[in-house]
């Protein structure tokens, strides 16, 4: 049965909101075939996620589920869905759809990033009633709601069970339907995806535009030209283009807390690196003190970046005393080349030393190469003789695997994306059996490494919010004191905007992409969107 809500026209929706973006990734509307960036850019427009955003602060918030509860034994999560949600064909969205969607994400043919983890951790899924769902896990999974939140990953996308069963997967991929504020119209590979405002009021916000066109325009100067000429209203840009866009009369929107650019040390704990200067934490700290972050922010990031929190933490990080760590960061990440030189001298390197530094940038953050180059230059000022080697990301990643022979004893640029649950990211860098294992491996897990392992294990099972914050802070402290991954700047997402085409709006802190924002963007003459 079709809902009796007013049509898009009747609600005063008009015009097309045109957004130009550098990549549409897999450009498929099937959530199990797309990864996080593509999901966040365009799939988010038409699919809702089980857990959503905290729009004002960033991080997780209500989504398809209004709230969720952990069982007393920690082995199951119960999700309570909003009533009266429908898919674009009018079918009711129920707990059965959520169960089906999670099972689809976990299926063997899924290319979801955490499909294997989901298969290992989720034991079963019970539909209690139409609006209640219980996810049973094999061990306590405190971070499960965050993992099913679009603030973190795309795996919480809710798909229509009955529709997919009726039409089959192939037809679903051709004519997908979701429950989001935008309804799929057409997908032109390599060119664009078009949506139409759903003809129903939506809890995420009812679109002000009738259509949404997401254009694939790989070249940044073309995207900016399109915004200048009005062919597009909004375009994603990099920090190097911000100044030009502003001079051209465009408004630049910055999204805070979308990533951290960091440098990190590989295999510093290994016995074969004991004579390498970077094996000493104080030497690593000295390298941090030699970085003038304010200059980097001013000149490389055009003022649109900020001093970072400790590794992989942000203002919106969960179970984390942000004020304490903000203060800590101001002190720890200061520019003090005199102290850096003094530390080097005390550690036995009054004339500096030779440092091998791999400069690389993750997809979408090409400016990291500039940051790496400037950092290397700053190190030379305290006597470090830097051997700088540039790597394309695809050729850098294999070096991390296996015995890391080509990286051990090196420093490198790296990145961490903005996500609210720090333990997941810490585990991927510091667990002795992780790929990166920056503090120690299974055979060499010394004091700091063991302390991290203990705190991380305790965190996995800790349900008390206060104790969880204490443990999280302790985990951050262990890593911060190790100086193995050192944040350089907290980066932002940047957009050039033609204010004659769209009105004032804000992005979601920590969420670079606008897939969950389009519905709230007003026309120029409309009131600004408020969180």
């Amino acid at each position, binding site marked *: 049965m079709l809902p009796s809500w007013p049509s898009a026209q009747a609600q005063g929706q008009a015009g097309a909101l045109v957004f130009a973006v550098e990549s549409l*990734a*897999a*450009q*498929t509307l*099937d959530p199990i*075939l797309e*990864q*996080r960036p593509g999901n966040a850019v365009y799939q988010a427009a038409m699919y809702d996620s089980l857990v959503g955003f905290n729009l004002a602060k960033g991080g997780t918030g209500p989504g398809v589920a209004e709230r969720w509860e952990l069982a007393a034994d920690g082995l199951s999560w119960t999700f309570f869905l909003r009533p009266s949600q429908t898919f674009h064909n009018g079918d009711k969205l129920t707990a059965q759809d959520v169960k089906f969607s999670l099972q689809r994400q976990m299926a*063997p*043919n*899924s*290319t979801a*990033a*955490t*499909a*294997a*983890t989901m*298969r*290992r951790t989720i034991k079963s899924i019970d539909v209690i009633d139409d609006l209640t769902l219980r996810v049973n896990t094999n061990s306590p999974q405190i971070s499960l709601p965050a993992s099913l939140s679009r603030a973190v990953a795309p795996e919480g996308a809710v798909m229509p069970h009955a529709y997919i069963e009726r039409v089959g997967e192939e037809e679903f991929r051709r004519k997908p339907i979701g429950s989001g504020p935008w309804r799929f119209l057409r997908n*032109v*590979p*390599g*060119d*664009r995806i078009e949506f139409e405002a759903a003809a129903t009021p939506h809890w995420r916000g009812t679109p002000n535009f009738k259509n949404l066109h997401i*254009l*694939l*325009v*790989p*070249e940044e*100067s*073309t995207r900016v*030209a*399109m915004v*200048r*000429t009005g*062919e597009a209203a909004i375009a994603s840009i990099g920090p190097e283009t911000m100044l030009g866009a502003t001079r051209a009369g465009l408004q630049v929107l910055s999204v805070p807390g979308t990533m951290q650019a960091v440098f990190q040390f590989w295999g510093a704990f290994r016995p074969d690196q004991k004579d390498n200067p970077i094996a000493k934490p104080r030497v690593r700290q000295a390298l941090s003190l030699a970085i003038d972050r304010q200059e980097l922010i001013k000149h490389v990031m055009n003022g649109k970046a900020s001093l970072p929190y400790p590794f992989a933490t942000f203002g919106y990080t969960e179970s984390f005393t942000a004020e304490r760590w903000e203060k800590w960061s101001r002190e720890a990440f200061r520019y003090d080349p005199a102290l850096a030189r003094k530390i080097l001298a005390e550690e036995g390197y009054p004339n500096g030393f030779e440092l091998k530094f791999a400069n690389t940038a*993750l*997809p979408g953050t090409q400016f990291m190469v500039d940051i790496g180059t400037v950092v290397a230059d700053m190190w030379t000022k305290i006597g470090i003789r830097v051997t700088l080697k540039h790597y394309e*990301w*695809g*050729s850098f*990643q*294999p070096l991390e695997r296996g015995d890391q022979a080509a990286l051990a004893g090196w420093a490198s640029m*790296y*990145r*961490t*994306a903005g996500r609210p649950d720090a333990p*997941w*990211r810490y585990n*991927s*860098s510091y667990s002795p059996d*992780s*790929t990166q294992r920056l503090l120690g491996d299974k055979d060499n897990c010394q004091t700091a490494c063991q302390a991290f392992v203990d705190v991380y294990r305790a965190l996995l099972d800790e349900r008390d919010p206060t104790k969880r914050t204490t443990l999280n802070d302790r985990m951050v402290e262990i890593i911060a004191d190790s100086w193995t991954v050192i944040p350089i700047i907290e980066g932002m997402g940047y957009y050039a905007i033609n204010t004659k085409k769209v009105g004032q709006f804000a992005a979601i802190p920590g969420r670079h992409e606008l897939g969950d924002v389009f519905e709230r963007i007003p026309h120029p003459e409309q009131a600004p969107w408020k969180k």
Partner: protein
Amino acid sequence: MKRYIAHRLLQGVLLLCLVASIVFFVGRLTGNPADLMLPEDVSAEDRAALIQVLGLDGPLHEQFFIFVRNALHGDLGMSIRMRQPAVEAFFSRLPNTLAIIPWAILLAMAVGIPLGVVAALHRGGWIDRMAGAIAVLGVAIPSFWLGILLIFVFSVQLGWLPSGRMGGPSHYVLPVITLGTFLIAGFMRLVRSSMLEVMDSEYIKLARIKGLRESVVIWKHGLRNALIPVLTLWGVFVGNLITGAIVTETIFAWPGIGRLTYEAVIFRDFPLLQAVIILKSILILSINLLVDILYAYVDPRIRLA
């Protein structure tokens, strides 16, 4: 002639096998697509699972044999990124590229051929030097710079033309100029040297002795013969455009096979990259074969050799 064609076909097949093998192995030296698809904090378990789903978990030689076996049955695999048959992806984008190539060649011929003739007729003079300078510029200006400059002038400043993307006739102007400019130089230089040779020949002198008008001597007798080498160049140019439209298609957000190639490289989409290169090679080999056959008809010395 049949032997000649059979010989060229055999050469083409061998070349294709070589290209396919090189693309298969060199592509895999550049890293694993799973690393570009997955976030930086993914677990080793999840990475291994995705590699298995993508069919990249077996030994390289096994993957190669599977690729060869499937290719012999006309199946060039499934795009890793788009989860779509790679051949289907190629042919869905090919018409977009073919839509601009003829216009670019037409533009290049319309400007390059008269310029070459005029330059030859004024050998050593200022017109010749000017034409030479234009030719050098055409080759020297990087197409990405020219494309951006054209967008800035004609879209942003003057507002006459769209900045990019496929659409009506106005959307074709800037990409066609960008693609065609590089070819103008080639046509001009070839026609100039060919005309110089032809205009010194006995039959041109005879035509003049017969009292034919100079314009008839130049444009009918001179140019017609001077255009024979251009035929060969035409085949090379079409090949260049099919393979070399990557930059132009990227700048103008044109969803053709140039962009598809670029995307396949960037995402390490091995099956798509293999399919695109193999199919492009078939296209280029076919065009070159056609040109060679035509040339052999036009100039019997070729087929006799």
